[in-house]
């Protein structure tokens, strides 16, 4: 009953509002379905956006080509911005508030409302408790889902429409599509027995966690570039032990970019891990941290795929990653990336001695 009356009241209010705005902004009204199949209705393109979702903060900056529209983000997203290159490209990012949400995606409604957002980007599929406070405060929420490349493209497209730049997403999605198709075409020729087993380590320092194939973006692009996920038997991201890694004996190990203090020495100095094929052949790499960490889907994913491809199948893939990065950073952030920036993003100093890594050094 209560919800019904509230619904009716909100309907009346909306009707009254749209009546008021009818002659002015109706032409600009933006209506779309988000990934939880909810209708999102914006009277005009969103000018003030808060992203509670972590990687979407830097994606909004990339889609807008600047920081003006991002008015709030997750504290964890902010730490990635401050650790990475975005704080150098856009120094003003350090002033964007991050008190709008707890890192676990529970919004702080008062701080959120204080930023006066037109649109709040929130995770779907994690229950209504993190969404209801936003909609109850009368704010527009757009829910997105994690996991696949298609979902990523869809929510990026949705966001660019919401901020009134539908033309912007085209080149970004085309770029993703072009790189993915190119990789797929080349990877098709690789026979199964030439595909190395690869292991992505999602957490290392306090406990070791890795991820199964189903629903994992990392496993998806490792297999895209002609690798085989060594931990395919797992379900989701779970804790494992070193003995299990020895049993899998992966040929390549990718370390996450989330743990700032993690580097390849963690593998080389370990009595067990240093005996894996990956360590003996020096094929251990830490994922780069560019505009965002390259592990999860984000605006720079094609660069992550090319990096992974060159390392997984060095005979098949020979992307000029430095050139690709220069183009991409110009397109994404209108920034002329320097050689020193690239060295930092790719951890040249830390892992320049790894196998097949010389290709990434400046010529």
């Amino acid at each position, binding site marked *: 009953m209560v919800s019904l009356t509230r619904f009716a009241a909100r309907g009346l209010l909306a009707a009254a509002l749209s009546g008021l705005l009818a002659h002015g902004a109706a032409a600009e009204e933006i209506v779309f379905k988000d990934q939880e199949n909810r209708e999102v209705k914006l009277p005009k393109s969103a000018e003030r956006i808060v992203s509670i979702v*972590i990687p979407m903060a830097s994606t909004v900056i990339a889609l807008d080509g600047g920081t003006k529209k991002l008015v709030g983000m997750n*504290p*964890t997203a902010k*730490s990635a911005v401050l650790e990475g290159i975005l704080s150098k490209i856009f120094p003003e990012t350090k002033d964007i508030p991050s008190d709008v949400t*707890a*890192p*676990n*995606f*529970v919004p702080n409604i008062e701080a959120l409302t204080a930023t006066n957002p037109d649109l709040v980007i929130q995770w779907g599929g994690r229950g209504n408790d993190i969404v209801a406070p936003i909609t109850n405060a009368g704010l527009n929420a757009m829910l997105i889902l994690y996991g696949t490349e298609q979902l990523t493209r869809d929510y990026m497209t949705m966001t660019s429409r919401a901020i009134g730049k539908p033309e912007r997403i085209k080149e970004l999605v085309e770029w993703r599509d072009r790189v993915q198709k190119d990789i797929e075409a080349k990877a098709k020729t690789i026979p199964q027995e030439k595909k190395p087993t690869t292991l992505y380590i999602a*957490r290392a*320092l*306090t*406990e*070791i*966690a890795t991820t199964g194939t189903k629903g994992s973006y990392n496993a998806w692009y490792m297999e895209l570039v002609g690798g085989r996920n060594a*931990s395919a*038997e*797992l*379900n989701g*991201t*779970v*804790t*494992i*032990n*070193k*003995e*299990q890694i*020895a*049993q899998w004996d992966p040929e390549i190990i990718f370390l*996450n970019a*989330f*743990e*700032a*203090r993690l580097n390849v020495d963690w593998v080389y100095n370990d*009595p*067990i891990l240093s*005996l894996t094929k990956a360590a003996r052949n020096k094929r251990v790499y830490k994922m780069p941290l560019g505009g965002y960490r390259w592990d999860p889907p984000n605006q720079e994913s094609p660069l992550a795929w090319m990096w992974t491809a060159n390392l997984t199948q060095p005979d098949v893939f020979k992307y000029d990653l430095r050139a690709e990065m220069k183009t991409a950073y110009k397109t994404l952030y209108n920034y002329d990336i320097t050689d020193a920036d690239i060295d930092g993003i790719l951890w040249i100093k830390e892992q320049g001695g790894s196998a097949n890594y010389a290709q990434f050094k400046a010529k």
Partner: protein
Amino acid sequence: MAALTEAEAAPIVRRSHLARQTLVFSGLLVLFAVAFVVSLCVGRFSVPAIRALELIWLGATDPWRELTTIEERIVLLVRAPRVVLAALAGAGLALSGAALQGVFRNPLVSPDILGISQGAAFGGALGIMLGIWGFPLIAMVFISGMAAVILVGLISRINGRSETITVILSGLVVSSMFSAVVSLLQFVADPNTSLPAIVYWLMGSFATATWERTLIAAPGLIIGGVLLWMLRFRLNILSLDEAEAQSLGARTNRERWLVFGLIAVIVGSQVAVSGIIGWIGIVIPHASRLLVGHDHRALLPASVVLGAGFMVIIDTLARTATAAEIPLGVITALVGAPIFAMLLRNHYRERNGS
């Protein structure tokens, strides 16, 4: 047929009691030894059992040999320290539980009651969040566990002495205070890295065991355990009624805090290297009491052996059942609770029957 006089009967009763105790202890020791050896031979990495036994023999006879093959390293650097640590931790927790239940004359208390676990959890969660790991993290956990016990001591000390009830209540107060702070830390932790690490650590695991970690924890566990064992007569007196204990010459307040201090060292050392492991400290002492009775001279060693064996079995399940590590807290409760319920029912059925 003349009935046996009482004087004649006593030695026979004592002798049959002794025979029973010997039988129980040899049974427990065999169980522990089997669990220990079997868990060194099984794991996710397949090493033939014969080869594993050979490696254990080599490792025991020539410990400083250089280990080059993966098999050697798996058995001697991954499994061995983990099994030893699990055994020590299980023994320490069970011993602490047995001693505490005696001192408090309350079968429901477990080592958590003194606030050590929650205090230590706070140190661990804070350390993980600050990106501290390795030895500094262990030190931080240990120190915060000790700080919690000291806090309990200060709060419960009224007019120069502390009643058991005020100790239990102060323990509750300090525990809930620290667990609130742990929740707060979880709330602000990074969901990609520190949050899952904190959650996993809170559920307890030996997955990160190495010889260094085992050697860091061992002194606290062993020295604390040996000193508690030396107090076994004192524990028998402390488990009596307060006035009775004092009439037997015990300075109950001081001796109680001596026991608490030792338990803090044991539990603090365990939590520092393997997170919070519930249930062992309450299930094992009860099981041991059903096997060997209430006398601490028998109860303490029985708890040690049974606790060590049980923990080794649980941990072996945790690391071998699936490719993923199962948190210990889950298995100790799933396995421990039904066994405990069964033991209790049997015990009371027998008692009511007789």
